[in-house]
């Protein structure tokens, strides 16, 4: 397996892992791994080391909403221009161009439903290219970025088997 791909797979699942452990797992030297990670960080392959948090477990956590946007394009503005503009708001956690009956899909985070609703009404819906918005509030997150937040599975193995 390609060393960079191996390192990426390990880091994606465990961003806190240290260099020497990655070296142990891959049979490479610490220096080789450090160079590899430096390069992946330098060329922008690794964008950020992220934590997945179950905000439902925190008092004063966050409210999330998915916003579907229909866009009317003008001659000189493409989707990228609209998306770039929307992406600059810190409240907006993700921006995606979609196939189907709407054009752009956002994830917006706020302290309350009211705050999110006002943000969409005042900052997104008012943009010239935005034709319409539809806001869907997230009630409960079961799985986030490959991680199941409400795990119920429990398996037990015998300690010694042939």
């Amino acid at each position: 397996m390609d060393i960079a791909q191996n390192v990426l797979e390990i880091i994606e699942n465990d961003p806190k892992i240290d260099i020497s452990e990655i070296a142990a797992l891959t049979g490479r030297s610490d220096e080789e791994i450090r160079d590899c990670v430096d390069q992946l960080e330098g060329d922008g392959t690794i964008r950020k080391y992220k934590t997945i948090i179950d905000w439902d477990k925190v008092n004063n956590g966050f409210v999330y909403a998915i916003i579907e946007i229909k866009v009317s394009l003008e001659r000189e503005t493409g989707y990228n221009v609209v998306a770039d503009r929307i992406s600059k708001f810190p409240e907006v956690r993700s921006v995606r161009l979609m196939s189907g009956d709407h054009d752009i899909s956002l994830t917006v985070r706020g302290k309350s439903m009211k705050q999110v609703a006002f943000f969409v009404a005042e900052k997104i819906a008012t943009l010239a290219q935005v034709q319409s918005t539809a806001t869907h509030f997230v009630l409960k997150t079961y799985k986030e970025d490959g991680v199941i937040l409400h795990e119920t599975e429990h398996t037990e193995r015998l300690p010694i088997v042939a």
Partner: protein
Amino acid sequence: MKQSTQNVSRLLHKRQVRVSDTVQSVPPSGIRRFFDLANELEDVISLGVGEPDFVTPWHIRESCIHALEQGHTSYTSNQGLPELREEIASTFMRDHSLHYDPNEEILITTGVSEGVDIAMRAILNRGDEVIISEPCYVSYVPTVIFAGGVPVTVATGIENDFKVTAERIEDAVTENTRAIMINYPNNPTGATMGKKDLEEIADVATEYDLIVISDEIYDKLTYDGKHTCFSSLNGMIANTVLFNGFSKSHAMTGLRVGYALGSSDIIGAMTKIHQYTMLCAPITSQMAAIDALRNGQTEMERMVREYDRRRHLIISGFNRIGLDCFWGKGAFYAFPSIAGTGMTADEFAERLMLEKRVAVVPGDVFGDSGAGFLRCSYAASRDDIKEALLRIGEFVESI
């Protein structure tokens, strides 16, 4: 009159022992004692398990649920679902360019264990010898004995990375030898054998007209190289009974489904025994196996990549602690030597369990040539492996 009373009395006395001589002659598995010991203790980290720590991939479990919802709860044909046999045939054509007729040369079994048992019963006459490379999985020797055969074990050793040599096999051949039994990638050593090594075994088999029984259940778990399927060797397809299954590659141990491939006479004979004793493998598991073959590649590769990382972690860890461990390239076992500690593997494993709460299996459980080694499964989480290495290191320091 007196004579006949004596006979009856002798008969009655004899019946006090109600278990057959054959079964009595086989000692219980050496693993049993450790299993009981581990069960009495709490917080044991186990490197003693011969099964993946992954749960069966969801798409396979989901196909079991679907099969049940659809009401597929009946018997299947004795040989197994035709669809599954066809899928296996096309897999072997694709991966090894081998043609197996799904109607006559493939039998679905309830795991490789059943397959080995019925193969021995299908080919052995009383007194026939089977050469078994050792250390080996605990069931091979007993199944030969249960089938009325005579197991002849051939030692492998660390000097040859636990590969069995053609020379040693040839030395063990007698006029009663019927078959050679091998298992690479190997349980318990993690050893693999390359194409050239296997070709030498094939030559011996051809020269003495022996059947080769090849348990290749760990074939997908081959790191640093490519697995060679024994029946793909020149002329070997007709003389090989090949076993494989889904337990290790797709984490499906409890579903009990595997298969045997071989020439129609042997598979036919095995089917006869299977028909009378097992009837068929569970239909739910067979349907899961179809899904594993059709859609299981990605998840399987993910698990194999992770095993490979753990392999590096554990083997380099043992070598660092001072327990010499060779770089096995297959299965999910490390086989470190404890020769330097002056203890037997049995003592070492027992004290390690009692003093440090780490479960490993002494190598001699798998045959005399495993003496002085430990079988440590790395089908355990990385955290468990790291903690186990830490505790084993402390233990080695303390003795």
